[in-house]
């Protein structure tokens, strides 16, 4: 399944990661060059730089092949244009919009566009992050090709109590350090993770999502 994410000003990275972890192919269209460069470095999305409400830009980005479009700019009027263009010009069946100004849902609903308020979305995102007890991006190395992330290990995660060598971390990823209470451990194959540990994970952009999944179970990387 292929989704086109349309953004402006705010970062699309969390959404990209979220869709990709579910196995979607992602096209990200964003109007800011710096954000586009960041997305190309840190995700495997196909990134297109341009006005996401321009029919030409959407066409060039390959919207015709998309199974779904998510309009996630911070202007409801821009989101409406994106969804209407996607449906009428390019025949995209599923278009979905974020609503920024409460009350504007009425317009989208009247036009048959599914939408949800960004307040609700942010609340659920925060909830997911809280469930994960924070995945903290420490930073990116090698021009974004390597991600450095800190995870707080949860009691119900499948990695708990399993020696790292049996865990079979995806290639291109590594548990580089473990912080347990006030001890810093550089793990060996026989080290295992315990609830409450903070694990520092080093991964290439390509295996980042899989590495998070491996440690925390299938539903991670949403945040």
């Amino acid at each position, binding site marked *: 399944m292929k989704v086109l994410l349309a953004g402006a000003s705010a970062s699309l990275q969390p959404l990209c990661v979220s869709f990709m972890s579910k196995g979607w192919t992602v096209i990200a269209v964003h109007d800011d060059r710096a954000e586009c460069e960041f997305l190309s470095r840190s995700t495997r999305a196909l990134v297109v730089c341009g006005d996401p*409400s*321009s*029919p*030409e830009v959407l066409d060039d980005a390959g919207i015709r092949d998309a199974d779904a479009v998510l309009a996630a700019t911070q*202007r*409801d*009027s*821009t989101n*409406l*244009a994106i969804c*209407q*263009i996607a449906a*009428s*010009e390019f025949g995209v069946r599923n278009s979905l919009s974020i609503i920024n*100004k409460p*009350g*504007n849902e*009425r*317009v989208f609903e*009247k*036009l048959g566009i599914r939408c949800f308020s960004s307040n609700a979305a942010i609340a659920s995102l925060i909830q997911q992050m809280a469930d994960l007890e924070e995945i903290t991006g420490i930073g990116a190395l090698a021009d974004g090709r390597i991600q450095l992330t800190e995870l707080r290990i949860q009691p119900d995660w499948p990695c708990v109590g399993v020696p790292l060598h049996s865990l079979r971390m995806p290639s291109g990823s590594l548990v580089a350090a473990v912080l347990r209470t006030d001890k810093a451990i550089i793990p060996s194959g026989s080290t295992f993770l315990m609830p409450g540990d903070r694990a520092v994970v080093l991964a290439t952009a390509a295996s980042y999502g899989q590495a998070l999944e491996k440690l925390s179970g299938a539903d991670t990387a949403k945040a």
Partner: protein
Amino acid sequence: MYVVIAGCGDLGRRLAEDLSRGGNEVVVMDARREALEMLSPEFGGFRVEGDAGDVATLQQAKLGNAQLAIGATDDDNVNLFFAQSARFVFEVPRALIRVHDPAREEVFRRLGAETVCPTSTAADLMLSLISKGSGRGAGE
């Protein structure tokens, strides 16, 4: 006629003043107070300070009472949002919008909006003047 105009730039202001002078009841909205202050002192209609891309502003302008909605903001997408809200939510019989981008104008028209594109209009006019060959050096 009760007319609601979104955008008080050069076009919105001109239409507001003319329609108001012509005896219509006119409401102009713009997010920029300075723009509303540019209206001539003779303008007899109402001013609403707010974003035309927000249904709350449209309610404040009593869009539901309008017979005509005119989208004249500088943002094509806001004008589309305004027209679609006017027609489908507030049941205004007619909505006219300005669309700067010619490519977008065609698309918006296919979405059922009544559009005017200054670029296309000016280009058509100029081409027809050129083809008439009036004036020295034109065409020949």
